[in-house]
């Protein structure tokens, strides 16, 4: 069975630009969560969606937004990119918002 997939794998943007990251959950999983991981740190929670509704939001600015589609895939959008947004962005899926989360390979974002 396919695991969580994310696209693109790598991305280079300049300050002020906008980026959209995509995630497809494991088949049958209805919850998707997004995390930001800076080098040397643990993942930081950004958003959780379950059944297309936002169920949790971390301490990130309004430049970060997300949504979940009817097929349970998800997008993370970041506007007005800053140098500090450079990180590995991880998507995790789970059967529900209270089940074990399984992570995708991540999208490496570099902001110049």
């Amino acid at each position, binding site marked *: 069975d396919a695991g969580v997939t994310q696209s693109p794998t790598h991305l280079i943007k300049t300050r002020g630009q906008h980026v959209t990251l995509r995630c497809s959950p494991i088949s049958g999983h209805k919850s998707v969560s997004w995390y930001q991981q800076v080098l040397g740190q*643990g*993942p930081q929670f950004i958003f*959780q969606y379950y059944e297309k509704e936002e169920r949790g939001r*971390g301490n990130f600015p309004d430049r970060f937004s997300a949504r979940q589609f009817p097929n349970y895939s998800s997008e993370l959008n970041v506007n007005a990119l800053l140098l500090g947004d450079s990180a590995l962005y991880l998507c995790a899926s789970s059967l529900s918002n*209270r089940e074990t989360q399984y*992570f995708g390979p991540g999208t490496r974002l570099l902001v110049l």
Partner: protein
Amino acid sequence: EDQVTQSPEALRLQEGESSSLNCSYTVSGLRGLFWYRQDPGKGPEFLFTLYSAGEEKEKERLKATLTKKESFLHITAPKPEDSATYLCAVRLYTDKLIFGTGTRLQVFP
């Protein structure tokens, strides 16, 4: 403030030299503790979930235990392929996951 602390930050072991990694937490409400393994540049790989004090889980050379304030990941007779960063995460009653900063393990032949 909810917090998860892992120690040590880094650990170097000789192949076959057993050791333990620590994850201590101070949270307002615990709905589960998770261990993940992360290889460089990749996403975390799920290892264990623990829900209550006294619970233990095993998988190959790894064994995870849980008390009311901390969890241990015991590695018995490690091999070089066990080298990775081991992450601990706690689920709060809000269902939010809080991660520690991880322990970077290196096992030398």
